């Protein structure tokens, strides 16, 4: 079921002045996709999710779920949360501590007064899906964090909702469990073919899970697209910086040729990804550390070769992180642990034009 949002505005009364948590959000979430709202804390992503589910009342705009208007200022429609037929996994899981696992999972059906047998079967199916068979009688508070998380998921699924919403569901798990659960969730949602809206501030989570990502900042959606598009072809400096580690270098556009855009910067003259920007304008060159692969210098004059000196080398586990000084810039690079490079070495590296991303300054 698709979700369409138009001109959504939400203001909070803050210290002395109103704070715009949502500043005119327009968004279409296609049916059957895993759609992630990504952004730093305070960007409005949770507020947007809560407006969709109906726990927050917007000040203006319209929300449609599967063609049905659930909230509209103009039409005076406000469908209450409980009538929207959605599922949600809360950040705190919101497992009711006074109920058994069965009652927690069966609740959405019980409050809709479905027959006992149907509830029992549906709960059993939902628990089997999250691999918690046989936990029915267990008291909810007697579960580990990971198990509570799966109960929350089972509860969100049990009534076969139109859409499932996830509010940072993995943030209360420890690092190792978070990675496992993320993978499970991915394959799980894939087989279900359901529309899922997922809120997170964790870029790795967003990249790994989503079919589509919307990056938010200051109550607006800055950019939207597939994980690859957001990562490799971001159009905004904020997005490029937020979605992964990036070296940002100020550059001036010198021309366009051969499907490339040429810029001049502290690293020299470089061929970059094609962008339609006026010659002479200032842009930001974004270089991901994994595409900077320094080697001992060789005598070449190929295009896009950069020379520098290794300033520092830090072992961080699977790789070395190197800081390479090029003219006035210091670039972060990821170096293979087997590369024979030491601090103080003069090195060179070639930048593939398709990985030289130009974003608005």
């Amino acid at each position, binding site marked *: 079921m698709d979700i369409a949002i138009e001109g959504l505005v939400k203001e909070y009364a803050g210290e002395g002045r109103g704070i715009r948590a949502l500043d005119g959000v327009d968004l279409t979430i296609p049916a059957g996709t895993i759609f992630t709202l990504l952004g730093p804390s305070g960007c409005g992503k949770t507020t947007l999710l809560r407006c969709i589910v109906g726990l927050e009342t917007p000040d203006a705009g319209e929300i449609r779920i599967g063609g049905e208007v659930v909230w509209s200022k103009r039409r005076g429609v406000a469908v209450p*949360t409980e009538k929207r037929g959605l*599922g*949600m996994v*809360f950040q*705190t899981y*919101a497992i009711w*501590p*006074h109920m058994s696992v069965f009652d927690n999972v069966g*609740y959405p059906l019980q*409050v809709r007064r479905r027959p006992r047998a149907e509830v029992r079967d549906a709960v059993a199916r939902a628990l089997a899906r999250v691999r918690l068979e046989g936990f029915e009688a267990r008291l909810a508070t007697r579960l580990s964090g990971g198990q509570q998380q799966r109960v929350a998921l089972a509860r969100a699924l049990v009534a076969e909702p139109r859409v499932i919403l996830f509010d940072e569901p993995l943030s209360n798990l420890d690092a190792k469990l978070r990675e496992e659960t993320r993978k499970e969730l991915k394959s799980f949602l894939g087989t279900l073919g359901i529309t899922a809206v997922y809120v997170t501030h964790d870029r790795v989570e967003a990249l790994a899970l989503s079919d589509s990502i919307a990056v938010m900042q200051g109550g607006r959606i800055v950019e939207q697209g597939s994980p690859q598009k957001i990562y490799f072809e971001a159009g905004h400096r904020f997005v490029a910086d937020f979605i992964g580690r990036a070296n940002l270098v100020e550059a001036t556009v010198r021309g366009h040729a051969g499907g490339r855009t040429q810029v001049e910067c502290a690293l020299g003259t470089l061929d970059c990804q094609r962008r339609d920007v006026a010659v002479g304008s200032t842009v930001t060159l974004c270089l991901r550390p994994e595409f900077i692969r320094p080697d001992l210098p060789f005598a070449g004059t190929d295009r896009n070769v950069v020379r520098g000196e290794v300033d520092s080398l830090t072992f961080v586990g699977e790789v070395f992180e190197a800081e390479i000084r090029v003219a006035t810039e210091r670039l972060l690079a990821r170096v293979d642990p087997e590369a024979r490079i030491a601090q103080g070495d003069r090195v060179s590296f070639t930048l593939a034009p398709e990985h030289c991303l130009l974003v608005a300054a």
Partner: protein
Amino acid sequence: MGNGRSTLAWLLIAVVGLLTICPVAMLALGSFSTGLTAFGSFTLAKYAAAYGDPALYGVVADTVGFVVGSSLLATVLALFFAYLSTRTDIPLKRLFAIVSLVPMMIPHLLFAVSWALLLNPSNGMLNLVLKDLFALDHAPFNIYSLPGMILVEGLLDMPIAYLIMAPAMASFDVSLEESSHVFGAGNLQTLARITLPVLRPAILAAFTLGVVRSLASFAVPSVIGMPGQVPVLATYIYQMIATGFATDYGKAAAVGMSVLVTSIVLIVVYRRLTAASEKFVTVSGRGYRPAQIALGRARGPLLAVVAAISLVMIVLPVLVLLYTSLVPYAMVPSRHAFAMMSLRHWREVLQDPVSLASLENSLFLGVAGATLGVVLSLFVAWVIVRVKTRAAGLLEGLSYLSFSFPGIVIGVGFMWFFVQTPLYATLTALLIGYIATYLPYGIRPLASAFIQIHTHLEESSRVCGAGTLVTLRRVVAPLLVPGIVSAWILMASMFVRELSLSVVLSRPGTEVLAVQILHFADDGLWGQLSALGMLMIAISTTLVVIAAAVGSRFRALAAQG
């Protein structure tokens, strides 16, 4: 060091144990003895007499009605107040904090008296006004009845129930309700299936504590219940030992044993429940706090209800007492009444040697008792918080035991004890009784103060080069002063108005304020009662103000170094 600590712990166990176990043991022994003068001669006669008396069962029925009714009223009112103050956007939230502190300012006895003055059937002020207004032949309300007792006791126990429920509601994870809405439940369904069940331990804890307190209550049963011929266990026991010609301390002890056991069981239940309510606190969300429920149009009316209850609880009793102390006899406020006002009752009280003696005794008991009590509490709290041994656990259990003691019952126990000693009918006897019964009120604020002073704070002071004394002066004492001040205020204001223990232990020559006020009530001397009562409120309030001033002064000094 470790040895010294455990010696101190055992010493304190001996002292606290003597204070708390002694009256209980004496009560038990006394219930099996033939009489105060024949202590130790074993007999079951008193139990047979007490429990064979058919009157007892009527009393028990009334007691159950009184205790359950007032606790229900207190819990429901507190639930309403706590919900409004923690979960909605109701204005004037400070009001709620003030209302919850009222019992420290207005003694229960005077609160009960002020209601009797308002709603007694013969000349209650409100009754007279209503009679005039609607031309009735009978007073519309009779406070001297079981419903009247329930109303007044319920209002009195409401603040303590509020203090238990408000924190539980404030820490309530709102996403539990939100998820219920998401999964299809409406407001009422969510309230019934999620909110109330999750709060159940806190609600039951508040109710249980209400039961313990109303079971121990003596002010309301004596001022309102006795004129209305509604005896409850507290007044039933009192009549056995106070009716002059046929006092029977053995029978009183035999009945008292049941009350005491009930109270102790209830306090154990209460502590289990509070532990359970803490267990229900789930993973809490980070950062995101949803807006409070907007009351919208209901805001005004709800605030009016809260304001009305606050008025009834704080302003009305004081006004009624002040007014009654100034007019010559019960009359409806009018131009005529104001013209007849005088300080006659005040003069009479201030010239009455017994009233003056009671004033002096209560002041002494308040100041000396609170000071000694705080010193003892300080040591006990330190051992409970800092010494993690079996002895410390035992001490904690012992010191909270007296929390459940109904004053009148424990008074009977002390009576059996003091009669065997030269302390009988001395102020010292009252002093010991007060400290023993109210020790938990001193230990609680001090224990939480010690918990706040993390050992690292002391240790880092040491590491920075400060010696033990400097550490005490610069780090521990300033952090502890607020705890000491609040413990002292609490104990002193409780001692100044102490009634239920005093009605048993106070003898001619050791009169205290509350007992003297009760005598005035028995004699129907409402004017003098009100004058003395106003003095009592003034003393309580002054103590609070002085102690608060001293506390903030000390903190300011400590801040300067």
